[in-house]
């Protein structure tokens, strides 16, 4: 945590992309709102996607950090101390989750003057942050596993770049399904990012995912579905991470 505060440049640059998305994309695509439904603000619509996109790219930093720990000898140094083996891994994961939470708070704060306030109120804010942190945890598992397996930051970055855009654009993060070609609609329905985005969007707009009903408030079926998907991914990725970590430390 101390490290994060000490390195404001890193925070700044890791926030740079989502802020650009928030300010520029929402302006650029502001007409999209009309496409999605009468009276829909694209900024409000896209905030959910942007928050998640940030968590997504932030999660990939975990993998490069663990590679750094291995390469610099820091991991070896820790392993020669009485520190609990699993604490080393969980410390890393928790600090990553903390970073995602901090970034999410900043993005939501910036979005507020742009007219984004969750219909579900303050509890909604908390649930959004919780959802994003949970999502970040699950995805950081992928990058951690990749980092532990390949021990190369370049590979983690490469795979992250390769995954980010297709997964993001073929989800409901930035565009509603109604605006997509049919094949992409199918892809986005199965895209795990869509599930998480839909849950967060519901918390912000109080609408159902297709925006047909905006008086529903908490759409628990969407939210719980998202948690189910995230939990499944988390179990897989963190399980793989734990397995690979054991291999590295023994």
């Amino acid at each position, binding site marked *: 945590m*101390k*490290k*994060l505060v*000490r*390195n404001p440049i*890193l925070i700044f640059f890791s926030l740079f992309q989502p802020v650009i998305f928030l300010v520029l994309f929402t302006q650029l695509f502001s007409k999209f709102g009309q496409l999605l439904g009468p009276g829909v603000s694209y900024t409000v619509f896209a905030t959910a996607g942007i928050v998640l996109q940030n968590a997504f790219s932030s999660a990939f*930093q975990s993998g*490069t*950090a663990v590679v*750094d*720990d291995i*390469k*610099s*000898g*820091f991991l*070896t*140094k*820790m*392993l*020669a*101390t*009485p*520190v609990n083996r699993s604490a080393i891994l969980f410390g890393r994961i928790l*600090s990553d989750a903390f970073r995602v939470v901090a970034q999410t708070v900043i993005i939501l704060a910036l979005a507020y003057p742009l007219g984004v306030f969750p219909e579900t109120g303050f509890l909604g804010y908390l649930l959004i942050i919780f959802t994003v942190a949970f999502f970040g945890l699950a995805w950081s598992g992928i990058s951690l596993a990749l980092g532990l397996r390949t021990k190369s930051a370049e590979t983690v970055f490469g795979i992250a770049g390769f995954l980010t855009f297709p997964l993001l654009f073929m989800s409901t993060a930035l565009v509603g399904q109604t605006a997509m070609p049919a094949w992409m609609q199918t892809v986005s329905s199965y895209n795990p990012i869509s599930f998480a985005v839909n849950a967060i969007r519901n918390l912000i707009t109080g609408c159902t995912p297709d925006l047909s009903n905006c008086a529903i408030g908490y759409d628990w079926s969407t939210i719980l579905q998202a948690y189910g998907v995230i939990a499944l991914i988390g179990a897989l990725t963190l399980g793989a991470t734990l397995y690979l970590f054991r291999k590295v*430390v*023994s």
Partner: protein
Amino acid sequence: MPGIIDVSQLVKTYGDGTKAVKGISFNVSEGEFFGFLGPNGAGKSTTIKILTTILRKSSGSASVAGFDVESDSAKIRKIIGVQNQDTVVDEDLTGRENMILQGEMQQMHGQALKDRVDELLKIVDLVDAADKRAGFYSGGMKKRLDLATTLVHDPKILFLDEPTTGLDPQSRAAIWAYLKQLNEQGITIFITTQYLEEVDRLCRRLAIVDLGEIVAQGTPAELKQEIGADSISLGLESTTMNGETKEKAKQVLENKFDRVSNIVNSDIGLTVYAKNGSFLVPEIVRAFDDAGIKLSSIAVSSPTLDDVFLKHTGKRIRVEEVTSANYRGMFARRRR
């Protein structure tokens, strides 16, 4: 008496089939300054990693302070200090914070930890820089900080893998001076290094490993004695130095001195190997005088650890000033 480090028939075979350590045995007594030398790839770091419980052995046995490296690894970790080949300091933290962090990893807290950190900062001369970020430290300061972090919990045994490689002579001397001081306070030191003069001066005993096996062990004096011969370097006067004089000189030496074990040509004349070389000097001078061979210089040197190393491994130890270790250190800033 069992040693504080006991290693018997230790074997490590890596997953890819590489046999890094092929059944080595040695022991280190409490309070000893023990040098573990060998060319690159000899198995030194592997051995240190097994002894410091970071790596699992394949077979054989190894214990530290009477604790088995595998079944009692938790107890070992509390009483050892380990410095890796790479300097590991967190560059975003200050020197003091680095030490506090390491102390916390050693499960120390509060005032006791603070006092200990202050004390160590004094010992390694980092008081003035203690609250600056380690990223601004010089290479020598980082290494000193790294060494200090390994001492926070007052370890009984210190494992050091190349602690001075890549440092300037002054920083190197400083580190060796601290190590000497620590050893005098009773800490057992197990060290790998490429600086043989320092080993000669400070290590009470040493082992030389090559290709995963111990090829020699003993005190520096014993090992040098084994070489058996001093070298006498004879400079012949340049006006008379031609093939003929050299031949003549060689014949004189071969005929008159049966203690001479070997004669080789050198740039300035000849180098002669003989037991107790210094006693031969007056006789050589007299014999050459009689034969009318003019000497310009004569110098005797006793065998060095370098000669010992050469004899056992067939390699000269080479100190690379810019190693990959500190090269990486320059570019790999850790991010979190």
